[in-house]
């Protein structure tokens, strides 16, 4: 019953309510791991499905993602000692020379909403900066975004520099599946919802 309420809260994006609903669930004896796996994450899975069906729109999805994030923050501190199923850590940025970031920002919010830990490197991220982050943060996946055809070239160089160190996923208006194959990226997503699915499939 309490888990269902959390799930509904995520689905309707009621970010002001989520903490209260979680508190009630905890008081009723729900385990934090259940709250995460069987309410928050399941809620976002349903949100992703609804978006793909055309039943939910981006602003609603982002509100749900934000609600999920607040929920996670409320539950995580209680997880000590308990086995958590963190989906993974992803570092993401627009490649060197590209300052267009609306698409990347969307992907960041969607990934966070799906429970990933996201390191947002911002715009105009150099090859070396990506390599440094891989070294220091040990992410499970690198996301690269490009809007311009010129920076697609930079994207190729960056993916090549990363090589087999960590898997890469790419996106951006002119980017295609063929291009991903060409430059040796691990995957391509045409939009933010697909990026979440892709991240899951690449990490697990």
């Amino acid at each position, binding site marked *: 019953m309490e888990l269902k309420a959390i799930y509904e809260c995520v689905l309707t994006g009621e970010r002001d309510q989520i903490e209260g609903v979680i508190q009630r669930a905890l008081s009723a004896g729900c385990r934090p791991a259940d709250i995460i796996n069987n309410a928050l994450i399941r809620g976002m899975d349903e949100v992703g499905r609804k*978006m793909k069906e*055309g039943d939910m*729109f*981006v*602003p609603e999805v982002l509100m749900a993602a934000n609600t999920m994030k607040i929920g996670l923050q409320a539950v995580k501190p209680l997880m000590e000692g308990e086995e958590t199923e963190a989906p993974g850590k992803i570092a993401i940025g627009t490649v060197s020379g590209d*300052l*267009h970031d*609306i*698409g990347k920002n*969307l992907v960041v919010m969607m990934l966070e909403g799906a429970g990933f830990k996201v390191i947002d490197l911002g715009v105009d991220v150099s090859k070396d900066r990506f390599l440094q982050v891989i070294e220091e943060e040990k992410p499970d996946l690198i996301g690269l975004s490009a809007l*311009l*055809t*010129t920076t*697609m*070239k930079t994207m190729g160089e960056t993916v090549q520099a990363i090589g087999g160190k960590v898997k890469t996923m790419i996106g951006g*208006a*002119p980017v295609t599946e063929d291009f991903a194959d060409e430059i040796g990226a691990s995957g391509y997503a045409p*939009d*933010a919802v697909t990026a979440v699915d892709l991240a899951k499939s690449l990490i697990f």
Partner: protein
Amino acid sequence: MKDTVPATIYFNILGKENCKKIHEASLTIMDEIGLQIKGEQVLQLLLDHGARTAGDGRVRIPVSLVEQALKAVPGEFTLFSRDGEPYVQVNKDNTIFGTHSDQLEILDPFSGKARKFLRKDTKLMSTLAEYLSNIDFVLSVGLSSDVPTRYQTQAAFIETVKNFRKPINFSSNDLQGLKDVLEIAALVAGGKKKLREKPFVFYYCEPIPPLSHPEASTEKLRISAENGIPVVYMPYCMLGGTAPITFAGALAQCNADVLTGLVISQLVHEGTPYIYGAMPSIMDMRTTVGSYGAPEFALLTAASSELAHMYGLPFYGTAGTSDARFIDEQSIAEVTMFCFAALLSGSNLVHDVGVLDHCINVAPEMVVLADEIIEMLKHFVQGVKVNNEELALDVIKEVGPGGHFLTTENTASKFKSIWYPQLFSRKMKNEDSSEMKDKIHAKINSALEHHQVPSLAPEILKELEKWEKLFNN
């Protein structure tokens, strides 16, 4: 000089009052909210003339700078042909349309498939655009997939100028691309001075909404202004994504970005021709696509045209575009709506005709079709003249009740002012299936076979070859 059809009927979307309100909101954005402006030279120029910076890194531009720029900018200039002949008077009263000479993909008219754009396709696009009477310029972007990135801009421009005599609008991947194209254009024009005096090219660059003018953008503005090349500065913003979801707010923000470009261009070189561009579209919240076919996009583009005209500036509009990938019911509906809106709102340089798949491909067949659609719509926006001759009471008296007008002198001398389509059918007995595709293909083939653009002078070609060696495979 191109005989443009000045629209005699316009629709107003905003009206004077609302234009003024949006203008004031834009000034508030510039003077109080501030913008992100990068590029040392341009920034210094702004600060020297009264703009302010603060701890938040934003630049605030006072009203006085905008007013000065509006006084300095010309409302009219001439674009020339490749051969140095006056081609069109660009002002707020004339409308001309343009397509692309290259794109990411081409909807191949021969295979019917969308595929990567190749350098050789530029010749097809340019020849077609040269041939069609309602297409008066092309946008050379630099997107051919078979050219190294470093030379995409230069290769596209060279291929275009070899096959196109009408004015060329160009953008560039980077500053080097802009500088190189200016060199190449000067070569064709017969020197830098001649290019400045008789520009057959105009440049296209853009900020990154909301309110961000990175160094690459401001430097492009600076270099084109310094060279006296007419420049379009056009924010492409998406409502709900990179602009407010509300129409008036999006227009005000977009206008603030355009006015910022105007101020920069006039500070760099007072009197440099500046073309007001605006693409306020929507972000589709189901797919995150920035739409090229939404009615709101057509509406807000038309409203932006009105804003440009309030300033006395020519407007760089958009039309003939679609979100659909192919020539189908959707793309034809969207293309037509947008062409109609562009003409009724008096947009002046209207780009992107035949660009489909939300700006991924260009479709030669759609360009041919749009040429016909534009011609049709021009006969709508001509309006209705009312005078004694047109009222023709004498003819009505002569024919009288129950008669006919078939044999009157009046009909014989004037019936050709009625439009006769080239592609659209008005057969008494129409065929059993549509002939449209065949007609379009025949027109494309005819353009390719019979409409060869004269070669450039041998000495110019020789110089161009030096460039081409850099990127020939």
